[in-house]
């Protein structure tokens, strides 16, 4: 059963074909990884899926529904959440507030109801808080609830960003280099969490990752990208032994 499909996906920036005819499908419940050298177009694919960029060509579906032209703010509501390569948290807000923004796609909003903080608003807030607390427990963020993001070390920020994506209760989560900038222990934790997200929470994972150790540990299938094109496709060990892939990475 395919959760997500990309058909013939392409985008040009001026003359640069950042992504050029990429096809893949992600099965429900698997961890799918995109790897490739710097500038291969991995993050661009994420930006296409979250609809920050418009495709030049091709089509994307989620659960059989076409999302090629869905407005970007509706993507979260459909069940796709993401993290960013350079961490895009709300710096001047607390961890709790950041996670609560993750609940945004599940909120009902009315300006005057909120301005008067009607009982219904209070009740909804408490319900969202409970959901957020589940994620806080899941990611061991208890110590940081009140901390402002700008005072947090890099490693914790990465976890908060993962948590914020989980708070949207996604079907598909996009992780852009979840281990970049993390030390060995933090990377280990991240590997466990990704595995738990997949097996315990039942969320399908699409990630971009450079750390092949992490990739072989958690992912089921790997897509290798080079200059926007698909180079190889298969299990982690298959692609690692693919001569084309080795050549691309060694710059042959």
């Amino acid at each position, binding site marked *: 059963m395919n959760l997500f499909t990309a058909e013939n996906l392409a985008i040009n920036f001026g003359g640069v074909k950042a992504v050029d005819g990429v096809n893949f499908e992600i099965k429900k419940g698997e961890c799918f990884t995109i790897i490739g050298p710097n500038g291969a177009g991995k993050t661009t694919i994420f930006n296409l899926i*979250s609809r*920050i960029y418009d495709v030049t060509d091709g089509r994307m579906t989620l659960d059989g529904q076409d999302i090629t032209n869905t*407005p*970007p*703010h*509706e*993507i*979260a*509501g459909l069940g796709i*959440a*993401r993290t*960013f*390569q*350079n*961490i*895009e*948290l*709300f*710096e*001047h*807000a607390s961890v*709790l*507030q950041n996670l*609560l*923004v*993750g*609940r*945004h*796609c599940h*909120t009902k*909003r009315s*300006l005057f109801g*909120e*301005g*008067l*903080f009607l009982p219904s*608003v*209070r009740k909804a*807030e*408490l319900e969202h*808080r*409970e959901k957020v*607390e589940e994620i806080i427990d899941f990611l061991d963020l208890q110590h940081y609830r009140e901390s402002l993001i*700008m*005072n*947090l*070390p*890099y490693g914790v920020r990465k976890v908060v960003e993962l948590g*914020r994506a989980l708070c*949207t209760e996604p079907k598909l989560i996009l992780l852009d280099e979840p281990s*970049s*900038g993390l030390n060995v222990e933090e990377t280990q934790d991240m590997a466990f969490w990704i595995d738990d997200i997949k097996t315990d929470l039942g969320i399908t994972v699409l990630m971009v990752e*450079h750390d092949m150790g992490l990739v072989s540990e958690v992912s089921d299938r790997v897509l290798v990208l080079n200059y926007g094109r698909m180079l190889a496709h298969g299990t982690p060990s298959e692609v690692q032994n693919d001569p084309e892939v080795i050549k691309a990475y060694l710059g042959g």
Partner: protein
Amino acid sequence: MRFLFKTDYEQDIQLAKHSGYIWSYGALLLAVLIVPFFLEEYYVGQMTQLYIMAIAGVGLMLLAGYTGLISLGHAAFFGIGAYTEAVLTGNGLALPFMDEPIVFSFFLSFPLAGIFAAIAGIAIGIPALRLVGIYLAIATFAFAIIIEEILSRWESVTNGYSGLLVESIYFGDFELTDGTPFYYLCLGVLIAVILFSLNLLRSPTGRAMMAVRDSEISAQSMGVNLAKTKTIAFALSAGITGLAGALFAHKLGFLSPESFTVLQSLELLVLVVVGGLGSMHGAVFGALFVLALPQGLAILKDYLPTQIAEVPGIEPLLFGLILVLIIIFEPLGIYGRWLKVKLYFQMFPLYKKATFKRQKSYMKSERLR
């Protein structure tokens, strides 16, 4: 030091986080409620003026401090609110199919002043959706100039530069728009506006505004509709500023386009920046600053040697100097300084100088790859 034991999620939602809030704000409320009985009329008027500025400050704070959209044109909304109030309660609204213009009661004209300003806010907000930072500031600036121009040219309604007399509001013999009753009216509106804003900020819409301020791209990916959130922020900000304008009309008693110039816009921006962007306290502290500084400078002038005090333009110069110093040394404004002073007394005598030094945090690019 106070230790807070949190045992319920409710505690994080509460506006009064602990009993200290209730005591201190209760005392403050009591003080401002009884103060008109002890102050001379002049000072009651000054306090009223302070509340009006603070209301406008709250309006701009929602936009600049919480949504991250800098407006250099808030005098326009202030002016629209003021003129709407003056026209609706004065000459009234002349409609082509009516014989007599309709004169509105204050309870209708006052909300309408806010609504008209909010509509103007939407009108400038929508085209400005794609603009950020300095470009937005320029667009709002241009908008304010247009409105100023309209106020001075549309003479049949605004009476142009000859000015427009603002009718006082009477209920029988009781005059609402002067002295102590007006003081309480402005205070009430200020409190209502602050509570409304604080409620909003602990709800999804307020959080969406802060999300837009800090990172548009991730706000969008979390499901925040950027266009809608920014438009709401503009409308709300303009509407609240419009309410302040309506009160201001009664305070002045006489409107002329000269009261709503670019300088007034600048003053409002200074108010929120000096008060402290991103805090409701900042709006009130900022209003205090904007009102007190010129008077403080006037007093200071008496103590300066005549050669210096007589220099033309010394007041704007000192104003500017103080502004620059505050922005350099206290980017969080007066509210930031207030937090430090408060902590100093809470921790006394153990206050560490380094408490507010920015802790080591990583630049975005520092640990990438």
